[in-house]
């Protein structure tokens, strides 16, 4: 039986990592990721989690040590934010390419300059193309559940890829929420111990991380892409199984009041809850608006997204990241390019919102809805920055 506990979301993630019975935690402190690894080091210090806690000297070494640990066959966790994730960037390609399962929590934070500790999605968007499975949590329960699920997904024989669980820094990581904590026995039933397919073991020597000449490099990359795209099947199956055991349903794409919606807002992460209340308000006023939330960002669920927005005339796609020098930002580009070939494609507008921790309010979503109506008349297609001083 699960019990309902009021808990800071960072602590909930640590508890999920404990329940996943990880073997190694390698991390370096960076705001706002710190509470996650602080609590894990306490759990190890108190003997509540039997793991090696590696207080490494940088995020670069956190990821390097995680790669070594996963290659040894140990269940591995790390967490970071912002500059820390950027410092890992060189190594972000390694776990997918080497097919090493591991889980990383990213407490999303803006990237310097100017230095900012506050939330947006600039950090993870720079890692968009590295081959990690990337999911975005909306609330604390989801952050907890996704962390448990992430190990099951990463270690699935058909997947064997790393998973990044994204949660908005401070606005999600540092808030106290009611969390349904399952029993350890329930988690053990859902998440059995990892049996690595390949590992560094003197009893069965293999070479990992070899030199790829032009005759083989391309194929190696293709294989990683196929694994990533193919992982969606396992992800959906694991989410179905999770629902049977825990009663909570997870879809790659979530919809809210999209029936009959002429305009659909598209969000990722914790602003989606604010967006839902804004949709409620507008619906009460008779405005045909709905919300689509992307939970699974990589691999991008093309089919599910198209189905979710079917029938809409206008999409207001909201990004928490700026793609400098482009007409649109990552989510905006993704959606527009995905729908371009569709016969009855909606008008796709892209908005940048809540950059560098700027507050996001219900009024912003109403504003975005209104802009979708007027911009269509003006034929504008460049990204619109919401709430920025001119």
């Amino acid at each position, binding site marked *: 039986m699960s019990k309902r506990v009021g808990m800071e979301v960072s602590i909930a993630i640590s508890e999920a990592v404990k329940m996943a019975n990880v073997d190694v935690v390698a991390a370096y402190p960076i705001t706002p990721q710190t509470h996650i690894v602080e609590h894990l080091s306490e759990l190890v210090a108190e003997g509540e989690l039997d793991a090696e806690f590696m*207080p490494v000297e940088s995020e670069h070494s956190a990821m390097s040590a995680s790669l070594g640990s996963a290659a040894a066959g140990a269940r591995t966790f790390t967490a970071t934010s912002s500059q820390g994730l950027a410092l890992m960037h060189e190594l972000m390609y390694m776990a997918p390419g080497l097919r090493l399962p591991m889980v990383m929590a990213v407490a999303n934070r803006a990237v310097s300059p100017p230095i900012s500790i506050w939330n947006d999605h600039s950090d993870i968007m720079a890692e968009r193309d590295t081959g990690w499975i990337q999911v975005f949590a909306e609330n604390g329960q989801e952050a907890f559940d996704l962390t448990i699920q992430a190990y099951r997904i990463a270690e699935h024989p058909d997947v064997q890829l790393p998973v990044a669980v994204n949660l908005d820094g401070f606005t999600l990581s540092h808030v106290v929420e009611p969390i349904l904590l399952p029993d350890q026995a329930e988690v053990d039933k859902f998440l059995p111990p990892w049996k690595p397919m390949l590992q560094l073991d003197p009893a069965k020597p293999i070479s990992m991380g070899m030199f790829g000449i032009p005759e083989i490099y391309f194929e190696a990359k293709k294989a990683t892409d196929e694994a990533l795209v193919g992982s969606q099947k396992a992800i959906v199956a694991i989410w179905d199984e999770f629902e049977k055991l825990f009663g909570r349903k997870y879809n790659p794409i979530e919809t809210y009041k999209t029936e009959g919606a002429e305009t659909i807002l598209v969000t990722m992460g914790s602003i989606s809850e604010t967006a839902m209340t804004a949709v409620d308000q507008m619906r009460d006023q008779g405005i045909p608006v709905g919300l689509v939330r992307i939970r699974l960002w990589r691999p991008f669920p093309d089919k599910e997204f198209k189905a979710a927005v079917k029938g809409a005339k206008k999409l207001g796609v909201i990004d928490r990241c700026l793609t400098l020098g482009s007409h649109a930002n990552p989510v905006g580009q993704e959606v527009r390019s995905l729908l371009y070939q569709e016969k009855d494609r909606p008008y796709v507008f892209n908005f940048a919102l809540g950059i560098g921790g700027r507050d996001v309010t219900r009024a912003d979503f109403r504003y975005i809805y209104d802009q979708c109506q007027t911009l269509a008349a003006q034929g504008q297609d460049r990204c619109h920055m919401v709430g920025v001083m001119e």
Partner: protein
Amino acid sequence: MSELQYEKISAKNLPQEEPFAPGHRACQGCGEVLALRMVMKAVGHQAIAVSATGCMEVCTSTFPTSSWRTPWFHVAFENAAAVASGVDSGYKALRRKGKTSQGRFPILAIAGDGGTADIGMQALSGALERWQDFIYVCLDNEAYMNTGIQRSSSTPFGAMTTTSPPGKLSKGQATWKKNMPAIAAAHGVPYVATASPAYYLDLMNKVRKAAATEGPAYLHIYAPCPTGWRMKPELAIESARLAVQSRVFPLYEVINGQYILNRKVDKPKPLTEYLKPQGRFRHLDAQTLADIEARVNAEYEKIVRLAGADKKPAKAEDKPAE
């Protein structure tokens, strides 16, 4: 402090096993790959090796071929020590939790001088400080050979490289070689040693000692590079020997902070005997040679004093140190 227990290698019981296979793509006469083979012979099959990017990684792992008969892992250039740390901590957890039947075995991180003294310094320092149970092997060929002979902080003063060229305003490398063994020893780790492939028994026994040491061990191995040093391929071992005999590369250990000089060189060979066959030093004038000689002797004497060897009689020379 109890003596380290390990099976000593002598000329009579050289390990027959070859965890490092032939057929790799190293240059003719490569001193580094010879040293690596000796390291792996001494460490044996029951080990895991992590390589930094560099000559020894590139020339041994062209997919689908591999020279590694032990488990081998390469990730990137600057992080061999951190990756090996992860392997160490991973296996510690797996052993404690009964998830592996493997007992303790040596975990090696292998890198060149650039991957150690320059870009890999931070990861190495972190791994030494965290007291990871591993052996760090720096194969020092005194420049970035894999990318085409660029200078590193381990390049000796005066040496010509492609980024320390002699010219109207330059005498070649303008800085003195970074003292990596001293930096490793400053972490207070239980075992630090220098070794040379010309003194192969000494080298292999130091590997055995490092493997027997619980906690971090650092080996700094001289690795002549005929290609990068502009010398005849057959001179790699000869130049490694001359480096020791001319005091350029003293052989010593630092065991729990105590320096031990393995070869006292009371009558050094003339420095020019070592420098002359190497084209990288061809341009040096008499004044620079004198400056280098003074520095070499000062550095050597420092080790002698640290080891207290100035108070002990010299051992016979030209015999592999034990």
